[in-house]
């Protein structure tokens, strides 16, 4: 099964024998890879398989220890990202390279603005050429808008427009859909189709199998730094890919959910709460031992709802009751005191402490400041014991409790975050995007943990943009649309179609009810 069996066409990019050695780790081992003009080539693998290293080598951020890179048949050496760009390779990552204070048009031409002879900017030309590119992509973004006001999806499209205007031949996309809603994903895919028509090669990295099967022409799977195989998509099934990634077959997600009788007792009751600008009159009872999914598009108020229940945003009306008693949640301290804990959507932004160790990250919410004399000093032995307990029950792979948080893979970081919630002594957990940026194996593990916690009496809200995830863990599922309750599905009604329909504001039809 060679990489070049599909066509006799000369690849626009090809890598031969690429290896990358880091101190103590062989991140890539003798990788063969090729990218054809006009194809979407998906790169898959679990965290730590070497995807990011490979992308970084292609985009010039890292240099291979050995091996050769050819662009359109010519051997190249990239000493920096700029050299890769000059060779026609654009990399679109989750951290955008846009200047938020500048407008869309300014960003597209940043650093290579057309100027008149005396060095003045040719504004008219900038605008004309920017609107050409945007029209071509079918993008409806005002040229004069500052990028900071754009949604994540729009920003990404501006990056693509920038790449197009620079006439890049190769675009690599690293987890492009991680922060997009369903409509934005659909729009991105349309644009990728257009890129293909123009003969641009797209290297697409994603954890989401379903997306790969929607748009990829070929799939390359890496495992432990080695290429497992490269195959045409139509020769593959989802199960094949998973087996290639894991080196074994996956436990079926469907087996995770096991119905348990729903308790009548409410752990948390929300009555007609309103958050100005985000949430209007939302009510629900979260029962003891229940996993309640929470679905909704970007802008539905999903995240803000959990933030309000964790005391990070002020509600302007309505009541919150815990076990029947009204509570006031003005701060995170209030929430934790009442046994509520929230994990944030963006692990990097609001989750991890990069400078602290794994243990310190795990236990950051376990200690209240200036409350009890016995908590004045940290007891390292006690903490080590707590760490070992969580490490074993969540199967966290860290070399030690003193390892720096940034050295862990995304999946293990997420497990530490989950551990942090458990160590906060809270019985009501609000989990936002619990498996974002996490590989398939860890995803299943985390779902199993969530179910197990519910069975042992935790009450859990899982707020997620990942609808299959909601289907696989929820006992009931609340669907929000534009800040209002659109539906509360019971287990029998929870299907991807029903959730999607409600989230985009439709009613679910009689058949599905």
């Amino acid at each position, binding site marked *: 099964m060679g990489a070049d069996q599909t066509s006799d066409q000369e690849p626009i990019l090809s890598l031969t024998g690429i290896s990358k050695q880091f101190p103590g780790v062989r991140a890539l081992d003798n990788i063969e890879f090729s990218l054809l003009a006009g194809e979407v080539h998906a790169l898959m693998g679990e965290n730590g398989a070497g995807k990011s290293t490979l992308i970084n080598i292609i985009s010039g951020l890292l240099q291979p220890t050995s091996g050769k890179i050819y662009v359109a048949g010519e051997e190249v050496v990239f000493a920096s990202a700029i050299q890769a760009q000059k060779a026609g390779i654009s990399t679109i990552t989750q951290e955008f390279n846009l200047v938020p204070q500048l407008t869309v048009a300014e960003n597209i031409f940043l650093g290579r603005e057309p100027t008149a002879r005396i060095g003045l900017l040719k504004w008219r030309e900038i605008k004309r050429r920017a609107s050409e590119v945007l029209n071509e992509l079918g993008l409806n973004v005002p040229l004069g808008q500052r990028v900071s006001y754009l949604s994540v999806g729009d920003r990404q499209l501006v990056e693509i427009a920038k790449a197009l205007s620079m006439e890049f031949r190769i675009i690599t996309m690293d987890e492009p859909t991680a922060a997009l809603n369903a409509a934005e994903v659909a729009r991105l895919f349309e644009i990728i189709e257009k890129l293909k028509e123009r003969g641009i090669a797209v290297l697409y990295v994603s954890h989401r199998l379903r997306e790969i099967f929607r748009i990829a022409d070929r799939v390359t799977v890496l495992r432990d730094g080695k290429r497992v195989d490269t195959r045409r998509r139509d020769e593959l099934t989802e199960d094949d890919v998973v087996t290639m990634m894991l080196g074994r077959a996956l436990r079926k997600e469907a087996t995770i959910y096991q119905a348990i009788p729903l308790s009548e007792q409410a752990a948390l009751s929300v009555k007609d709460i309103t958050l100005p600008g985000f949430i209007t009159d939302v009510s629900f009872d979260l029962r003891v031992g229940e996993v309640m999914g929470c679905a909704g598009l970007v802008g539905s108020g999903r995240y803000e709802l959990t933030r309000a229940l964790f005391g990070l945003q002020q509600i302007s009306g309505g009541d919150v009751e815990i076990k029947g008693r009204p509570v006031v949640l003005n701060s995170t301290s209030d929430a934790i005191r009442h046994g509520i804990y929230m994990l944030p959507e963006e692990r990097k932004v609001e*989750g991890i402490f990069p400078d602290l160790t794994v243990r310190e990250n795990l236990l950051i919410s376990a200690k209240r*400041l200036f409350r009890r004399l016995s908590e004045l000093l940290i007891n*390292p032995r006690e903490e080590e014991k707590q760490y070992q307990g969580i490490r074993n029950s969540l199967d966290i792979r860290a070399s*030690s*409790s003193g390892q720096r948080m940034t050295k862990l893979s995304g999946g293990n970081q997420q497990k530490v975050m989950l551990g942090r919630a458990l160590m906060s002594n809270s019985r009501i957990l609000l989990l936002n995007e619990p498996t974002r940026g996490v590989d398939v194996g860890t995803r299943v593990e985390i779902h199993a943990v969530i179910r197990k916690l519910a069975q042992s009496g935790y009450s859990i809200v899982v707020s997620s943009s990942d609808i299959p995830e909601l289907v696989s863990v929820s006992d009931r599922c609340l669907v929000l649309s534009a800040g209002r309750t659109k539906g509360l599905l019971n287990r029998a009604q929870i299907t991807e179609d029903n959730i999607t329909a409600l989230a985009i504001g439709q009613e679910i039809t009689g058949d599905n009810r």
Partner: protein
Amino acid sequence: MSNPPELLNFRAIFSIANATRFIQVAESLGVFALLLIVVISASIIAPGFFTYTNLTNTLIIASITAVTGLGMTFAIAMGGFDLSVGSVQVLTAIVVTSLLSVIDPPLAILGALLTGLALGLLNGALISKLRLPAFVVTFGMMSIVRGVALLVTQGQSVMVTKHIEFGLLNNGKILGLPVPFIIMMIVFVVLSALLKHTPFGRHACAIGGNRGAAIVSGVSIDRVTIAVFGLVGVTAAISGVMLSSQLMIVDATLGTGFELQAITVSVLGGTSLSGGHGNLVGTVFAALLLATIASALNILKVVSFYQYLALGILLIFALAIDTARRAFIAKSLLSRA
């Protein structure tokens, strides 16, 4: 530790913990090596440098800077800094000197420390409650406190006339070591314990490392901020008391540029201005380095104005090293994930 895998794991923990510690020590060693080079070269080219009297003096001067530098390290670890420490130092020096003519030394010292604490807490309260940047608040306080110092002294000097034994805080020896050095070591031990072994220190580093995450994790940002600035105020006040006992006569023009020294020793000692961690050992070595350079320049009869040049160059040098180090770490992290 009954089964072998568990045992293996414990071993791994120790080796990694040791490795992390080793890196930290190595970072301080950088300053330490520089200090060693400067001390040796000063001993060779500046006759009179390597004498008991001069070394003692250098140690005393270093200790005064180090005490505030240690407090500053805490603030920098939290992602802030305090520009008012020079003014607080001089005001508290004036407070203790003036009080000595009316009350006993312990009470006078307590008065100075409480003044420093109050000013620090005020800094922290303004920063957290009014949501102002530390730069603006402490810059303003730098001027306000200096103004208060000038007003209460009417621009005159204040002298220690009663309780001359107050000078022992400077000249005294315990186990052959100068008292200021002992004071500095006590502050070092207490702050090290606070930074590494209390939730307070951990929360301060958490705020400096990722403020957004600290908020979401339920860390009380306001309380920690206020407490850290209170701590910096106290260390500045201890430096003020030490300064007063060293000079026995103080006026409101002392201590200008002290904030720059305190920040420099922190950064030079390996504490990154971007926050997230603090290297207290490094701060102590850097304070010794700074005092040694100043002393050598004095003995070599270099006009004291050059010391400002040296300080500025060191600060920029330290920042350049910090940036290079972070770039290196970022590069090595690219290899992961």
